[in-house]
C-alpha cells in the first residue's frame, strides 16, 4: 500500500472516530538546544465531559457503590491501581504503563470554570484563562508566542478545523491526511499571490503548503519502516458505511475502531520522531457526554482513548522517554447515577498523566472522597487540583518554559493554581 493510500484511509479514520489531531512543531533545534529539542508534550482533550469515576473508579471509597448504583463497578472488574482506585477495564494499555510508573491519575482535577456548560468549560480549558471570555487565544499558542524570542518554535495543527487551544498570534499550521498537493500545478503559487494582502487566508494557506511538503516527507519516511508497512497492510477497518454513525457499529466494528485509533496514535508518534517533527501535539476525542446508558458508551470511548495512547507509545519508540502526555476533559460528571443509567454535568474529573519522562508516584493531588459532605454542591466530585497547575508544572519542568512567562503570558490570573511539581 502506498503512503498516499494509507493517508487517505487515515482521513476516514479520524472522521469516523470523531478524532482530530493538532500538533505544534519545533524545527530542527537539536543541534543548539540539545535535550530540550527532544522533549515532547501531547495534550489529549476529551470533549463532552468525561466521567472521572468511570476512568478511575474509586472502588475502595466507601461511598462509591451507593452513589453509583446500577452503574457502579465492582472491585474485581477494575484494573487495580491502589487500595482506593482502579482503572476502567478498557484502559489496558494505560494500566500496563501505570504498573511501570509511566502513567498516573489526578482523580479530582478541574478547570476554574463552574458553569457546567460544555462550551464555556471547553473554552476555559483551551484558553487557559481564569474564566470564560478571559482570553480569545489558546494557551498552547501563547506558549509558542512566549517561546518565540528564546527559541523559534513552529506551530502545526493536524485536523480539519482549527482548535481554540492553538489559535492566536502565531499562525499555527494544520494538516490532516488527504490527497497531497500536486506540486506541478501552478495553482498554489497563483493563490499565494491572490492571498498576498489577505490577513486571514494568506498566512493560513502558506502554512498549509509548507506543512503538506513536510508531511509528505514524513509519510514517505514512515512508509519505509517495517512497522508502518505492517500497519498499512492491515485492513482499513475504520471505514464504516458512509452515513452510519459510530453508534451503529457492533462489537466487531468497535474493535476495528480501536485498531484505527491505535493507528492514528502510532502515526502521530511517527510524526513526532521525524527530524524537525513536532514537539507538542494536541488530540481531541469526542463523545464523552454520557447522559444515558453510560457504561456501554464510555467503554467504547475509553477503548479508543486507550488505543490512541497505546499507539502513541508504540509510535514514539525510544522517544517515549522524552514524552509527557496529559489527558483532560472540560468537566467531570455527577457522582450519583441519574435516572437514565447515565450521569449529568459535574465538576472535577480524572486527568491522566503518562510518559516515559514521568517520575513514579501515586495519585496527583488529594482525593476529596465521595462522602456526602465532601461532594461539591452535594453533587459532584470536588476539585482538589486546578488543571492550569498541572499544565504549568509540565510546561516548566518538562518543556523548560520560563516560570515568569507562564504566570504573566500563558496562564494569567492563575496565581491560585500552584504548579504541580515533581512530575518529571
Amino acid at each position, binding site marked *: 500500500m502506498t503512503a498516499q493510500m494509507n493517508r487517505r484511509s487515515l482521513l476516514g479514520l479520524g*472522521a469516523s472516530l470523531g478524532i482530530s489531531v493538532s500538533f505544534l512543531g519545533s524545527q530542527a533545534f537539536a543541534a543548539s538546544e540539545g535535550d530540550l529539542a527532544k522533549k515532547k508534550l501531547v495534550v489529549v482533550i476529551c470533549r463532552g465531559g468525561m466521567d472521572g469515576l468511570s476512568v478511575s473508579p474509586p472502588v475502595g471509597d466507601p461511598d462509591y457503590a451507593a452513589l453509583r448504583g446500577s452503574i457502579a463497578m465492582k472491585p474485581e472488574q477494575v484494573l487495580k491501581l491502589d487500595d482506593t482506585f482502579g482503572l476502567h477495564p478498557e484502559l489496558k494499555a494505560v494500566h500496563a504503563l501505570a504498573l511501570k510508573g509511566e502513567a498516573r491519575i489526578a482523580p479530582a482535577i478541574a478547570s476554574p470554570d463552574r458553569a457546567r456548560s460544555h462550551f464555556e468549560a471547553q473554552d476555559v480549558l483551551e484558553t487557559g484563562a481564569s474564566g470564560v471570555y478571559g482570553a480569545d487565544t489558546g494557551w498552547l499558542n501563547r506558549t509558542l508566542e512566549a517561546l518565540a524570542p528564546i527559541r523559534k518554535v513552529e506551530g502545526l495543527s493536524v485536523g480539519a478545523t482549527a482548535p481554540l487551544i492553538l489559535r492566536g498570534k502565531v499562525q499555527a499550521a494544520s494538516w490532516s491526511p488527504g490527497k497531497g498537493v500536486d506540486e506541478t500545478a501552478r495553482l498554489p503559487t497563483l493563490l499565494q499571490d491572490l492571498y498576498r494582502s489577505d490577513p486571514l487566508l494568506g498566512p493560513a494557506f502558506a502554512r498549509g503548503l509548507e506543512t503538506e511538503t513536510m508531511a509528505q516527507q514524513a509519510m514517505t519516511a514512515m512508509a519505509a519502516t517495517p512497522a508502518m508497512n505492517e500497519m498499512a497492510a492491515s485492513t482499513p477497518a475504520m471505514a464504516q458505511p458512509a452515513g452510519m454513525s459510530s453508534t451503529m457499529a457492533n462489537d466487531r466494528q468497535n474493535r476495528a475502531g480501536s485498531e484505527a485509533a491505535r493507528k492514528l496514535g502510532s502515526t502521530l508518534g511517527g510524526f513526532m520522531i521525524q527530524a524537525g517533527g513536532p514537539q507538542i501535539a494536541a488530540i481531541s476525542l469526542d463523545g464523552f457526554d454520557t447522559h444515558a446508558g453510560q457504561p456501554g458508551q464510555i467503554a467504547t470511548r475509553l477503548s479508543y482513548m486507550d488505543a490512541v495512547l497505546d499507539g502513541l507509545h508504540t509510535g514514539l519508540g525510544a522517544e517515549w522517554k522524552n514524552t509527557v502526555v496529559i489527558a483532560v476533559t472540560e468537566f467531570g460528571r455527577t457522582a450519583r447515577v441519574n435516572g437514565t443509567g447515565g450521569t449529568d454535568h459535574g465538576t472535577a474529573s480524572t486527568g491522566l498523566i503518562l510518559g516515559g519522562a514521568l517520575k513514579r508516584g501515586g495519585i496527583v493531588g488529594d482525593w476529596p472522597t465521595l462522602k456526602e459532605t465532601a461532594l461539591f454542591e452535594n453533587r459532584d466530585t470536588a476539585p482538589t487540583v486546578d488543571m492550569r497547575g498541572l499544565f504549568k508544572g509540565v510546561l516548566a519542568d518538562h518543556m523548560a518554559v520560563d516560570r515568569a512567562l507562564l504566570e504573566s503570558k500563558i496562564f494569567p490570573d492563575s496565581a491560585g493554581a500552584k504548579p504541580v511539581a515533581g512530575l518529571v
Partner: protein
Amino acid sequence: MMAALAVTRFGLGARPGEIDAARSDPQGSITAQIQRSGADKPVDDADTAAQRFTWIRDYQDARSTERALNNAGGSERAPSTLMDTRLQLRDKIQNDFLARARLGANTPAAFRERWALFWANHFTVSSTKQITFAMIGPFEREAIRPNVFNSFENLLVASSTHPAMLTYLDQASSIGPNSRAAGRRGGKGLNENLAREILELHTVGVDAGYRQADVTEFARALTGFSVGRDNEDRAGQFVFRDNAHEPGARTIMGRRYAEADIKQGWAVLKDLAADPRTAHHVCSKIARHFVSDTPPQTLTARLEKRWMDTGGDLAEVAKALVESPEAWDPTPAKFKTPYEFTLSTWRLIGAQPSAYDRIAPILTGLGQKPFSPPSPKGWAEDAQTWASPDGLIKRMQWAQGMAAAVADRTDPNALAVSALGERLTPAVAKAVSRAETRREAFALLVMSPEFQRR
C-alpha cells in the same frame, strides 16, 4: 453592489443570472422569499419521524432476535435480510441529506433556505444515536421548516416536543423521582440534558444567570415529555406521560410554575420564548451568522427590538435583518462554512450534486460530516474555525477536482461575473483571465478570497 450582496450574503451563492435578476430590487428579492408557510421541503421519501422510529425499532428487534439465535447456537442466521434493512436505512438517511443539498443547490429562494439552515443548526440534532440519526431528516421537515417564519415560541415548542430532539438529548426517558412511574421502575429518574441545553443554547443563553437549581427544576417540569413506544398508539410520536411527571410546583429563575402535567413544561417554554434574554441571545446569533463574526451592536439591537415588538415573530425578524443598513456593508466579513462553500460551487455552474458520494467526502474532509455536528451547540460558523491551513488545502484540492470535471465546458471570465457581480475585484478578474487553462481559471475563481467569503 446590493444585488451581489443580496445573492451571496443572504443567499447561498449566485446561480447564473441570479444577480442580474435581483438588480431591480435587491432587498425586495429577499423579503419576497419570506412566507408564513415556512421553508421549502426537500424532495425525498417524506417518511415521518414515526415511520422512521418504527423502522429502527423493527431493525433493532430483528437484530436482537438474531443475536439470541446465534448465542443459543441455533440455526444458520440469515444475514441478508438484516443487511438489506441496514443498507436501506443508510440509503434513507443519505437521501435525506442529498435531497437537502440539492434543494440548496437549486432553489431560487436561497435566503429562505439559509434561514431554515440557521434554525436547524440552532436546534441541533446530531447523529450520535441510531434512533436519532434516522429522524434528523424528518425533524427538519416536521419541526423546523414549517415554523421558521412563525413565532419563535412555536418553533421552540415544535423542536422541544419532536421525537428526534427528545431522543437526542435523552428527555424521552427522564422520569420524575416522585412520580408514579418512578415507584414502578426502580432506579429510573431525572435526566437534565434537554433542560440544560434549552436554557443554554436554545433560549436565554449561558450568561443569563440561571443556576444549577434552575436546570434541575426545569428538568423536573419537563418530565413526561416523551416518545410513544412500539406497543403504543402513538409509536414514534410525541406523548406526554402523566405518570412520569414530577408532581408539584416548580420554581425556575425566580418564577413559580404551579401548573399541572404538560401545561407546566409548556408554561416554562412560553416564558423562555418571551424572555428578553432569549431575544438578545438568538438575535446576536442571527447577526453573527449572516453578517459578521463580530457584528455591529446596532444591528443586534435592531433585531432584538423587532423581536420584542412583535413577540418573537421570526418573519418580522427576518425582515428587520434585510432592512438593516449594517447587513449591507460591502466588505464581506463571513468565511463560508464547508456546506455553504460546496453548495455555492454547484450554484456557480447551475448544477447540483448527483449523488451522496459527490458531497459527503468533501464535507467530512473539511470537518463538517453530514448530519453530525460535534455537539448540541451545532456547527461553528466563525472564520477562525474553518479557515485553517489544512482546510484551505482541502478546499483547493476539491476545487481542482471540480474544475477537472466541469471547467472545460465553461467560460471562466463570464462565470466570475455571474458569481460575484459587483463584488468581483480587479485582482480576481485579472487572475482568472490570465490563467493558463479553463481548469486553472475555474479553481482560482472558486478559491478566490471573494468567493470564499460572503
